[in-house]
């Protein structure tokens, strides 16, 4: 089983992709998902606890991820 994760900016560069299919069983916690992503090729360029948004809302790492959620890994923001 795998779930899609959106990537942006420096994180998209790290993985060479704007979308990652992460092999993990859901439901799971955000922290579990991040752990798997960091073990994938390019994942060493991520910080230990990257920002994550689920369904376009900031979430903490103990939040549960469900099938169908829109999950995004968010690099340090730099708008303005």
């Amino acid at each position, binding site marked *: 089983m795998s779930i899609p994760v959106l990537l942006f*900016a*420096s994180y998209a560069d790290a993985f060479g992709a704007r979308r990652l299919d992460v092999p993990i069983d859901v439901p799971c916690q955000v922290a579990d998902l991040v752990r798997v992503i960091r073990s994938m090729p390019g994942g060493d360029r991520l910080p230990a606890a990257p920002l994550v948004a689920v369904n376009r809302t900031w979430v903490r790492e103990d939040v549960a991820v469900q099938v169908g959620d829109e999950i995004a890994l968010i*690099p*340090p*923001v730099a708008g303005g």
Partner: protein
Amino acid sequence: MMVPERDVLHVAIVSAPIDVGALLSRAQAPGVGAVSMFLGTVRDLNDGRPVSGMEYEAYGPMAESELRAIAEETCGRIAGLRLVVEHRVGTLEIGEASVAIVAAHAHRAQAMDGARDVIEALKRRVPIWKREHYLSGDREWLDPTKVQA
């Protein structure tokens, strides 16, 4: 009982150049006595390196909804505030505006506080990134957690 008027007039992530005059017009109203506008513009130097341009990327739907949430919260704190906000994405040249915030109010303190609160929250919360293009040909995503942007 009337629902309190929420004066978030316009919030958008745009790819076309920002039309400052149009945004100022949107914020105008007969009860407005003060308008404070903040523009972020692309400058030619950052951390001592000559810059040729700036590329902005956004997580579009979330950027727009976060920006709208910031605007709603700011209008919730400052009664009577009228807000117009646009952030541009894509590749911008030196001098072009990346963001425009227009805050209008009957009184000046509220207008100025409104514009300042929105830009400060935007910098903290809205999923937008910028990659500087240097004259040397290099490009680099800025990380405000590492250097002062």
